[in-house]
């Protein structure tokens, strides 16, 4: 138990090495092994949930080893209520994505699976690192596998999309690197400099204007990743070109690295900077919510529609975080999980019809409900959860966010609430055009409904959609104390 976090982080790396030893021709063996290893990773993460003490606010499962002592770099990992569910989301989506995209990748299966596991190591590392150096390492590590996943297995404009993704993220991390170095040299603990986040939170002091600059430097890196308007332009390209599995992980987990970064690093480290830039950030959230929704309405490609809806949904998450009230932040964290589940499911659902028809244009479908009834039911549930219908997970999250935001940012919350209506417009309209009406294309008449494999993939996602929608308490009680602690750090300094 003590070393659970390093095990969770590096098991996927080990899994990648195992896959490396299997010959590339044995595709069946490769896929089975990958699924098994993914399930093992998920099983390993269950003790993280059961062993987690809900009432404790601080870091749990703490690991603190020296790494480069001369530079004050430590190998420090831990989880609290915020990162706990992001780690679980990652390990949960890993086997599901492998199973869900079983036949989606037709060539170079081996490389695809290996990169998937490498990416998982990077993502979990980001969520559990409590040392700025370690965090930065994992943050950058996630770039390489994603670059290849988009670049090799992507659509026709994949190279453009991969390079754009890479350069946007790198450009964002440049300023963060400098801010990290500045914090390092200005924080002195007993005469030593340190990258240890917990020590920095305790000892770092800077004037208001310095904090504003530092916050802006961190915020740029995270805002690109989230992505917040107007830094979102890489996202639709990356999503449209990425293979289904890449999209699921990109929307489900990678974007949360940005929102998580705000909450874990930028906001508590530089509260004065946060306060100075808050009006701007709130305005960008509101614009992102509405703009993303409007663009979604106009899309003719289902995948692009879902991609722009992510911009809108992530705007909600950020609004919740910037509300700086317990309800808002808790809602924001819950909504990160919800978005991972719902949008992950949406991308998998898009993948299902793409595998059958090799097109994602809304106009190429119509009347699928008659041909694929099971698929129609599942997609409707996923769509409703994405809109936030009461009884589904989306409702709980968005409700908490708006509740929290009304307290401190009534205007922003009021305008953003209309985003929920627009979400209904684009999602339901898309659903109507794809599912209802007569079957307009002959090819669509013979489409097969969901296979047993595909059904099994959606099942756990549906369970979670209703579980969080009806009984979110097991989630909220674990998130709550950590949120209180972060908010008190922001308030006191």
């Amino acid at each position, binding site marked *: 138990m003590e070393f659970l976090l390093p095990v969770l982080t590096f098991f996927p790396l080990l899994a990648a090495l195992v896959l490396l030893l299997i010959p590339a021709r044995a595709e069946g063996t490769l896929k089975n092994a990958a699924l098994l290893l993914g399930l093992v990773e998920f099983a390993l993460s269950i003790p993280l949930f059961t062993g987690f003490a809900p009432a404790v606010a601080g870091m749990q499962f703490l690991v603190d080893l020296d790494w480069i002592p001369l530079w004050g770099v430590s190998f420090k990992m831990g989880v609290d209520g915020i990162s706990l569910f992001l780690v679980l989301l990652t390990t949960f989506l890993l086997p599901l994505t492998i199973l869900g995209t079983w036949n989606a990748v037709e060539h170079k299966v081996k490389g695809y699976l290996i990169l998937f596991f490498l990416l998982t190591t990077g993502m979990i590392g980001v969520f559990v690192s409590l040392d700025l*150096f370690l965090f930065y390492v994992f943050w950058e590590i996630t770039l*390489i596998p994603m670059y290849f996943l988009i670049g090799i297995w992507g659509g026709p404009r994949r190279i453009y999309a991969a390079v754009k993704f890479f350069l946007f993220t790198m450009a964002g991390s*440049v300023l963060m690197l400098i801010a990290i170095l500045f914090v390092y040299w200005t924080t002195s603990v007993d005469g030593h400099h340190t990258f240890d986040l917990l020590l920095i939170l305790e000892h770092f002091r800077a004037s208001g204007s310095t904090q504003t600059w530092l916050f802006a430097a961190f915020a740029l890196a995270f805002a690109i990743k989230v992505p917040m308007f107007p830094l979102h332009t890489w996202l639709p390209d990356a999503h449209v070109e990425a293979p289904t599995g890449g999209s699921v992980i990109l929307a489900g987990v990678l974007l949360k690295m940005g929102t998580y970064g705000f909450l874990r690093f930028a906001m508590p480290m530089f509260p004065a900077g946060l306060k100075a830039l808050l009006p701007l950030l709130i305005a960008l959230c509101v614009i992102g919510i509405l703009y993303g929704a409007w663009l979604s309405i106009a899309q003719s490609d289902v995948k692009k529609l879902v991609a722009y809806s992510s911009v809108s949904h992530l705007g909600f998450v950020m609004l919740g975080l910037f509300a700086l009230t317990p309800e808002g932040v808790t809602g924001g964290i819950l909504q990160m999980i919800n978005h991972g589940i719902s949008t992950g499911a949406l991308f998998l659902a898009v993948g299902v019809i793409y595998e059958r028809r090799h097109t994602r244009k809304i106009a190429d479908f119509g009347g699928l409900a008659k041909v694929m009834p099971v698929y129609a039911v599942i997609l409707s549930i996923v769509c409703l959860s994405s809109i936030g219908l009461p009884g589904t997970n989306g409702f709980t999250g968005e409700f908490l966010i708006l509740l929290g935001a009304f307290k401190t940012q009534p205007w922003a919350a009021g305008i953003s609430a209309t985003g929920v209506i627009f979400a209904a417009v684009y999602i339901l309209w898309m659903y109507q055009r794809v599912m209802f009406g007569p079957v307009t294309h002959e090819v669509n008449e013979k489409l097969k409904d969901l296979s047993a494999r595909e059904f099994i993939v959606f099942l756990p996602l549906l369970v979670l959609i209703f579980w969080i929608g009806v009984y979110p308490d097991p989630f909220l009680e674990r998130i709550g104390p950590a949120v209180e602690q972060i908010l008190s750090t922001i308030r006191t300094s």
Partner: protein
Amino acid sequence: MPAWLPEALIFFSLVFLLLQESFAGERGVTPLLAWGAQALALFCLPFLPGEASLLGGSFLLHPQALLFKAIFLLSALVCTLYAVERPNPDREGRIRGEFLMTLQASLLGAMVLVSAGDLITLLIGLELATLPAVALSAWARRNPQSGEGGLKYVLLAALSSALLLFGFALLIGLSGSLALEAPARPLPLQGLVLALLLAGAGFKLSLPPFHLWAADVYQGAPTPVAIWLSTASKAAGLAFLFQLLQGPLAGALPDMLPLLALLAVLAMSLGNLVAVLQQNLKRFMAYSSISQAGYLLLGLLDGWSDAGLAAMLYYMLVYVIGNLVVFGVILERERDCGATEIEDFRGLIRLRPGLATAMLLGLLSLAGIPPLAGFTGKWFLFAQAAAGGWYWVVLLAAVNSTISLYYYLRIVRQMFIEVDGDLPVRGDGGTRAGRIIAAGTVAICLAGILPWLYEGMRGML
């Protein structure tokens, strides 16, 4: 062990190579004489005394010199092994006795340079390191580009030597001493002396505006020689700069910082921007190495400190290993398909997966992507510059890292992504060079994760 043992080994190996060629003919030369001596000398280094002074203080041994010698010997060893492994006489000239002897001479010069205790020894070391390298770069007699590169190199080397000599003459004349130490009182014309000496060091390090020779020489020179120039010869330039900064220029360092910062920024930006446009991999690596020299200078910006010195030496070593890997792959491809255009690397992952993976890791290390050694090295350098308060330089360096990533990825793209259609020749592979490349790749990965290498270097200084 006597402090002069490594130099003696290299010297005797040089003499024996010469004699063997004279008596046994070219075919009778055993390359073992060359690389065996280098390996033995490398093996001796840990057992040498930490501090020693020979020949009345002209030849000094200290930890810094030891570390530099390790870098020189390592890259000489790898160059020799690369060179003698199925050479390509058309493109590289004949790689036997004379070639190996000339390489040993250049190595000997570099080793004397770092141990020099006075100005004369320093100058002799520098010239002994440079002039054989000039000859080597023109070695491929049937390749006109090689001759062109060699000619450019010899002209500019002569110019830089002239400037340096003038600088040394002024220094010796005005201070009245041959000692490698800061003048007791401020000299007249100090600015001129400083400029002249800096120009000499800048030439060796290929810092703009003294970089003009690099691209043509790298492209034209036989690839093993390009490796030598980009690794050991560059390290020798850094060592020369260190000798100056610890010696005659010691007092002037604080005033020089803005100039060094400017040179660093110029080197990074120019190297990176021009590298984006290159089609030939050897030219590309020339510009990449110009920009890497710029990053190296960041370690000087906090003034002179052990931490900065360790950061620079660590990065130098990491850079050398990265270059040995990348150039090793280039050399393999050159011998397989006879060219070094970026095009020739298309689809390498399908042709030679091992080589492609090594190249990927080498390039990413040079670009500074974690968890590879290049990342840690760059981080230390950036942190060192930040410690001196040079945040704007760090900013530009980080922006440059992003640009550099763009062009390193161009090659990665060719190797991994554009793999359809007709691919270049596969080649046979299976040489010992592959093993060296593999070892270097493993070193790059491990050095980034395990801190021992850096800690060991820091502990020595």
